């Protein structure tokens, strides 16, 4: 009997478990999944919690419900991955698991302690994140009664999880404060280390235009050095300052600490991964899916979803002793909530930036790309159901390769 060990049961790990459980012979393979948290968090929902559009409890379900039957599920912290010895040490029983193949899906998380002043003064008083369930919930409580003032959204350092969420937050904030009738008392500012609103030029132009139209100021090339709590001011490395009354921060994002403890990561604890095959660059029996790896694409659930098909095929090639045939193209797509019941949709990969057109099918779409529409907004709301019932079980019928059909270059 051989062991496939999957570390992490978030989007990537759950998908890999579901897809591989259907393809591996249960008389030959035992699938073991380890995670430290029994709750599966619907992270795309965190965006809506601060604006009272989603109850925190509706973003949580038990992880076990989404893992395949016959899988051994262990809830435990991981002490270390010992890749040389093909084993993983846990804090709980059985303490040590030896594996034949390992899939790392330990994700990434915010590390506010990386920026001086971010966590030691106004944290959760006038400084909030919305990348954690606790942060999004606390921010929601604050926003309900916030009297107005300078709201600054700051991205501390790239890469961050979901590079589009900061923009969506500002679009929704504009809508939210209009609903509350206090938009004229609120100054909205985006302070970003990027030169433009987004990382890809065509989308940056469209989204930058929308920010301007909504009266949201952009402070570009702003590399955050420290947060001065006494003066409620952000200070950049080139000594520029941005004052705030309410700071919404996207802190530095890092891979899991266990990756650092195991000596498997780069400076931000991301596992060195072949960006096309999704195999570790050091160990041929180690695979990486989702945010945990260093592939130069967005850290987002849609990417983990598109990676899963490639990873599964390459995994099967590898255990049969065949060459790895499948190539991940960096495919990402996402709905961009723009407020007032509308959304954009973008679709891109390592080499092709987001283009206008229709998705997923040419001519009939139905979803328009790089364009604001009500239909996209309904798509985004419907996606929560799709996530739990189709995406996580590995039954969402979208090809992993990005298609140029229906797009206008």
């Amino acid at each position, binding site marked *: 009997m051989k062991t496939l060990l999957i570390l992490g049961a978030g989007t990537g790990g759950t998908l890999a478990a579901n897809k591989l459980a259907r393809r591996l012979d249960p008389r030959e393979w035992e699938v073991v999944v380890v995670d430290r948290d029994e709750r599966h968090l619907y992270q795309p929902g965190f965006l809506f919690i601060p604006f009272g559009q989603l109850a925190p409890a509706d973003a949580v379900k038990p992880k076990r419900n989404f893992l395949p039957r016959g899988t051994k599920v262990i809830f435990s912290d991981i002490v270390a991955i010992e890749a040389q010895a093909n084993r993983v040490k846990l804090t709980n029983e059985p303490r040590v698991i030896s594996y034949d193949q390992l899939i790392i899906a330990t994700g990434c998380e915010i590390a506010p302690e990386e920026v001086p002043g971010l966590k030691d003064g106004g944290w959760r008083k006038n400084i909030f994140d919305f990348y954690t369930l606790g942060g999004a919930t606390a921010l929601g409580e604050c926003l309900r009664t916030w009297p107005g003032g300078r709201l600054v959204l700051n991205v501390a350092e*790239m*890469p961050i999880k979901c590079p589009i969420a900061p923009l969506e937050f500002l679009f929704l904030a504009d809508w939210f404060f209009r609903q509350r009738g206090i938009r004229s008392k609120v100054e909205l500012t985006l302070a970003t280390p990027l*030169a433009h609103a987004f*990382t*890809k030029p065509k989308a940056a132009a469209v989204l930058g235009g929308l920010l301007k139209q909504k009266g949201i100021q952009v402070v570009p*090339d702003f590399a955050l050095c420290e947060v001065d709590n006494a003066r409620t001011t952000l200070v950049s*490395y*080139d000594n520029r300052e941005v004052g705030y009354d309410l700071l919404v921060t996207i802190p530095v994002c890092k891979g899991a600490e266990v990756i650092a403890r195991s000596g498997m990561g*780069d*400076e931000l604890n991301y596992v060195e991964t072949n960006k096309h095959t999704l195999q570790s660059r050091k160990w041929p029996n180690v695979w990486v899916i989702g945010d945990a790896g260093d592939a130069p694409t967005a850290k987002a659930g849609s990417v983990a979803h598109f990676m899963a098909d490639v990873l599964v095929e390459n995994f099967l090639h590898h255990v049969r002793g065949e060459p790895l045939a499948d190539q991940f193209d960096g495919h990402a797509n996402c709905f961009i909530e723009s407020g007032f019941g509308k959304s954009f949709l973008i679709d891109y990969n390592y080499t092709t930036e987001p283009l206008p057109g229709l998705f997923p099918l040419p001519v009939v779409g139905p979803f328009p790309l790089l364009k604001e529409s009500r239909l996209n907004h309904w798509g985004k709301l419907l996606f929560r159901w799709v996530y739990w019932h189709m995406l996580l079980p590995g039954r969402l019928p979208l090809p992993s390769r990005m298609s140029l059909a229906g797009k206008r270059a």
Partner: protein
Amino acid sequence: MATIELAGKQFDVDEDGFIQDTAQWNDDVARAFAEQEGIVELTEEHWKVIRFLRSYYLEFGVAPMIRKLCKETGFQLKYIYQLFPTGPAKGACKLAGLPKPTGCV
């Protein structure tokens, strides 16, 4: 596409002034960019940053993470801003002849 003249030669550049064909780069290009950026003289420390960025880019096809740059050169980010007032991306990468870093996505 815009062009600029640096060290007596024409270069295609993007809207932020980054040269498009990295193979055209040489030390004189770095010096000409330095003058544009208001850097009086390129010291050994400037070159250490430029050479690391270039060798990393030629090997991996992307600019390194800022943290990697700090670790490999031994300079704190604050000091890199003293060397290159417009910062590691807009300043140092431009001098090193890299295309504009996109922030890894």
